[in-house]
């Protein structure tokens, strides 16, 4: 007598099975746990974001965006940290993206499969190097003897950005149909011209998405900047040859303070950073959706 699970008649003793009831209970339980996990994740997100918004929003006034970080016991804002972060992230992109794209091109267009696999491993391992080790590395080879500078900070962040952008670029390049390249080569265009004028433009959307995602990650990195660009004047400066204050390091410092005004500034700075990261993430999504639609 076949008994499909759904048609068990609970009043028919011949059909009732404790095992089945237990299985159903387990099923319901797992469902509840799954929903619970999702709710927990959403809950934590709401909690963290909510706290940041709630505690940070009061400190967001005009002064906050135009005044530099305060000295001991004074008033101030995060203007110098905003400028510093913007400059360092911009330089980081300039340092990392060309190299990353070239590596990806080499892997996709020129390298033999074994070299390609080797480079993939190199990039994945590089991606796994903890940010703090990268910070110490740049500190050891550049900062010692020369002092900190925003450029060194940007170099450290560029090392973090490189594998992310290279992988994203390589994946995009692989998706571009071979026929595109072959048609171009058949028409007499040189390989390098093919790559730069035909393949790359087709990949730009994907590369940009990868860059934007990497920027969102790197903008919040604190550890490398602690060693390379943390001793900076409390004033807005664009001198990249000296250390510049940055948003993550400022938040890190504010977090420790006992002064409630400093803590409020920390929350507000965290709010600014989160908004930036969220906006860039959404931007990346918009890009990739636009690409997929094309």
């Amino acid at each position, binding site marked *: 007598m076949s008994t499909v699970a759904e048609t068990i008649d609970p009043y028919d003793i011949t059909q009732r099975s404790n095992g089945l009831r237990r299985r*159903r209970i387990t099923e319901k339980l797992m469902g509840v746990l799954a929903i619970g996990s999702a709710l927990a*994740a959403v809950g934590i997100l709401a909690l963290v974001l909510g706290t940041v918004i709630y505690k940070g929003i009061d400190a967001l006034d005009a002064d906050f965006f135009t005044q530099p970080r305060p000295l001991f016991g004074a008033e101030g804002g995060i203007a110098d940290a905003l400028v510093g972060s913007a400059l360092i992230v911009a330089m980081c992109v300039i340092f990392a993206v060309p190299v990353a794209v070239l590596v990806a091109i080499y892997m996709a267009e020129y390298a033999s499969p074994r070299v390609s696999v080797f480079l993939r491993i190199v990039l994945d391992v590089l991606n796994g190097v*903890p940010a703090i080790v990268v910070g110490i590395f740049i500190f050891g080879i550049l900062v010692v003897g020369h002092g900190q500078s925003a450029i060194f900070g940007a170099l450290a962040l560029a090392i973090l950005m490189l594998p992310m952008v290279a992988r994203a670029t390589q994946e995009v390049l692989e998706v571009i149909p071979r026929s595109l390249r072959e048609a171009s080569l058949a028409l007499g265009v040189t390989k*390098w011209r093919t790559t730069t004028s035909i393949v790359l433009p087709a990949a730009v959307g994907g590369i940009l998405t990868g860059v934007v995602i990497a920027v969102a990650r790197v903008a919040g990195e604190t550890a490398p900047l602690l060693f390379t660009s943390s001793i900076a004047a409390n004033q807005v400066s664009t001198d990249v040859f000296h250390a510049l204050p940055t948003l993550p390091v400022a938040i890190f410092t504010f977090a420790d303070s006992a002064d409630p005004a400093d803590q409020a500034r920390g929350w507000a700075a965290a709010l600014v950073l989160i908004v930036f990261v969220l906006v860039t993430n959404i931007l990346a999504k918009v890009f990739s959706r636009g690409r997929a639609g094309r």
Partner: protein
Amino acid sequence: MSTIDDSAAPGAGLAGTGLERRGLRLGDTLFRGVALAASAGSAFLLGWIAFKVLDLAWPSIEEFGLSFIWTDAWDPVTEQFGALAFVYGTALTSAIALVLAVPISIGIALFLTELAPRRVAAPIATMVELLAAIPSVVLGLWGILVFGPWVAQHLEPLLQNYLGFLPIFSGSPSQAGILPAALVLTIMIVPIASAICRELFLRVPRDLTDGALALGSTRWESIRGVTLAYAAPGIAAAVLLGLGRAFGEAIAVTQVIGGGNSINVSWFATGDTLASRIASQYQGATSQLQAGSILYLAAILMAISLVTNVVAQVIVRRFEKARRAA
């Protein structure tokens, strides 16, 4: 006479003047050379990082040798250093974080792929991604000012009330310690692991799960028997990637772990992890030996991250090979 020059590099195309052909080859060679240089440079960079860390750690490696790894000491006054307390801290916080994060991540992934209607799944998936995007320094700020005090005032007393007979929940509640740090790490691992799991579960062939359901299993049984079994290697890889993230996290951990020097059974006690100790003490090392010892910690950290990374990749590669063969 043939105008096609077959000795030219691919892409040289139809023959032009000799000069043109040479110029074209130059462009190709140059470009290839630059791309090769970038790639070689990246590989070289990785090697240089490893070398530099070992080089800076050398004074300590020379002094203490391998026994540094299992020595429990950290006394700058007597210049005795050993990594055991921090290896323990790293292992413990990561283990707690994994044990908590993996079920939660699988739960979230299952919810998103099996239970939730598409309209609900998309925004929730986005929210989980946003959780991944929160910078660690912001989690650290939240940890010091909000979460740590909550753990000390509510969670730890609760645990002590009901499970206080266990030595891990003994001692007095503290807002800085192993437990808050492990919980913050959990929050960091969950989004990554759940995103990977979600991808994995979406790729499980429907016919397998349908077959299980047709044979009379409940939804959960088909998930357990088919989906999870099928995705197991991938889940292992996700776990390892999350682990790698947990090992290397310095900033958020250092803000809530309390900088303790010794190994303590209680999870309420302060402690320290490899990455966190590097972050808090590197700049202030008062002697060559202390600086070297901190770099020795970095070398251990790098080795652990490397091994985790490589194992994860091996699993993924073998997984893909098996899948392709099947």
